[in-house]
């Protein structure tokens, strides 16, 4: 203690009698504030509510909607987007974006197919190679972003074109027919198999998607690696200073995203039967996965949201597509409403972020 402590602190004498507490919490009683707080802590609540409401609305509008077969068809239709969404979720949580997810998926599926049929590699081996090459494509994104410090948007805009054109060049625009695959390499179509409890067909791909979402939900919430993904997206510099190796995290996240895309590529073969380099996923996969992520309440600015939200987001899109078709409206209404939902989701995200102020 210094003897002139008193003189130095003299100008603060007026503080005497003031509250000494520095860390004081008062509960804000307003209902709106509470809702805001709750959403802040449970970011997947909004898409869950939207999903529940839309299911109820469509069930009322169309008697065919709320049936097991309809539900399983919806799940089947979102399987690929859901898996690409896992990849996109990881990347967006780090405040990045991956425009190449669809391209990696298509190229990986083509690689698996061509390695089997053109080069005669056994299908299981070709699948492993395809998964490894997809991971490598993601890792290239990650290297360019973490080492060369290039913006993720630009890097993946570039690699989207590169992977997609490499896919056309490598495959010579050649489609492998479904019958050929079924005959000589059924392993490629594994995820197209289905179980039929009570006559309701559920694809293996649906179980895979749900398993991946569940695993990643655990990893993101309950492991140090998962917390670091959030920390990097929240404030990369702060994460670095508090002991997270941000460059390595970013590389790992993009590589893992590449692996998920390759898995989606494998699932595509099961879903569509054939291997086609011109599959629409190559062009639309990125937008569809970003849509699921955004509607799922994950912040494009990184660090906020949950992968379960992405799953709800993908389901909402699936429910809208199916529901509006059953109701018999012009299918363009689907995209109209999804556009509205995207803007709504981002507006809610901005509002939730204000909880701190």
């Amino acid at each position, binding site marked *: 203690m210094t003897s002139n402590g008193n003189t130095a602190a003299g100008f603060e004498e007026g503080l005497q009698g003031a509250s000494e507490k*520095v860390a004081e919490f008062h509960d804000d009683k307003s209902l709106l504030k509470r809702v805001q707080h709750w959403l*802040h802590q449970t970011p997947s609540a909004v898409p869950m509510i939207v999903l529940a409401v839309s299911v109820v609305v469509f069930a009322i509008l169309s008697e065919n909607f709320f049936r097991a077969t309809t539900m399983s068809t919806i799940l089947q239709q979102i399987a690929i987007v859901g898996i690409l969404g896992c990849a996109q979720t990881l990347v967006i949580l780090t405040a990045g974006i991956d425009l190449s997810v669809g391209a990696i998926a298509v190229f990986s599926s083509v690689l698996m197919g061509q390695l089997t049929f053109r080069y005669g590699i056994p299908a299981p081996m070709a699948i492993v190679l395809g998964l490894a090459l997809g991971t490598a494509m993601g890792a290239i994104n990650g290297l360019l972003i973490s080492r060369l410090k290039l913006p993720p948007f630009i890097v993946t805009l570039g690699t989207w074109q590169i992977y997609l054109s490499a896919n056309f060049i490598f495959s010579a625009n050649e489609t492998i027919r479904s019958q050929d695959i079924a005959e000589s390499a059924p392993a490629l179509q594994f995820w197209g198999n289905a179980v039929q409890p009570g006559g309701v067909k559920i694809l293996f791909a649906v179980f895979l998607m749900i398993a991946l979402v569940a695993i990643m939900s655990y990893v993101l919430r309950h492991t140090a690696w998962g917390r670091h993904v959030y920390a990097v997206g929240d404030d990369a510099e702060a*994460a670095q200073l508090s002991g997270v190796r941000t460059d390595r995290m970013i590389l790992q996240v993009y590589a893992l995203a590449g692996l998920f895309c390759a898995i989606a590529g494998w699932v595509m073969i099961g879903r569509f039967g054939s291997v086609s380099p011109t599959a629409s996923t190559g062009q639309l996969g990125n937008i569809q996965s970003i849509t699921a992520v955004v509607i799922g309440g994950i912040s494009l600015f990184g660090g906020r949201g949950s992968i379960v939200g992405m799953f709800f987001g993908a389901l909402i899109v699936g429910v809208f597509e199916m529901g509006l078709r059953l109701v018999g409206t012009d299918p363009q209404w689907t995209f109209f409403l999804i556009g509205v939902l995207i803007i709504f989701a981002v507006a809610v995200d901005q509002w939730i972020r204000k909880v701190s102020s």
Partner: protein
Amino acid sequence: MTEPILKARNLVKRYGKVTALDHCDFELMPGEILAVIGDNGAGKSSLIKALSGAVQPDGGEIWLDGKKVEFASPLDARAHGIECVYQTLAMSPALSIADNMFMGRELRKPGIMGSLFRKLDRPAMEKFAREKLNELGLMTIQNINQAVETLSGGQRQGVAVARAAAFGSKVVILDEPTAALGVKESRRVLELIRDVRSRGIPIILISHNMPHVFEVADRIHIHRLGKRLCVIRPDDYTMSDAVAFMTGAKEAPGEPMAA
């Protein structure tokens, strides 16, 4: 004579043509609060970054506890028991207090859940974080799972100091801890600093706030033009003397004073 716990000799750091550290010396004694003051651009930050591993000096040596050390990164310095509270606090706003306190050194569950499934031991982490905050009198933080962004500036500073004090076994470095705070919150942080010292951990305090420096520091290291100009005791000089030394308006006292 007691040995300094942290000592640096002839530190040099150049950024291109700019010499931020010009054969700078530094000594921190056990159990003391050493303030580092200096004008803008004097090289305070570079000195602190060199001591905390954030930059690697081009020349010179650092000893910790009498042993020569070289820090390749802040993680490295942390492993040696040197914790730094950065001016920006280095916290992830959306994550909880407990998550932030354990960032980069999380605890895992014992047994297979931890080793194979890498599951975090949340209850242990929360208990530890709560204890540490209580020790520093921040017990009014009720919910340890609260996101850091919902805390006030003073509370965040408190959590950052608690984190450093909890893990900094040898040295705690505080960079401008009161710069962003109001009068009341500053007062609380100064008390926190004293609390940490009373637990035997020496502190390096970088500050522009002369009243704060003169109030809590045991010794004051005055930095000028990339090197240590002198070390004074706050009792021997006035604040205006210190300002005069650090701006060069007044000749510094003869030789750097021993502890």
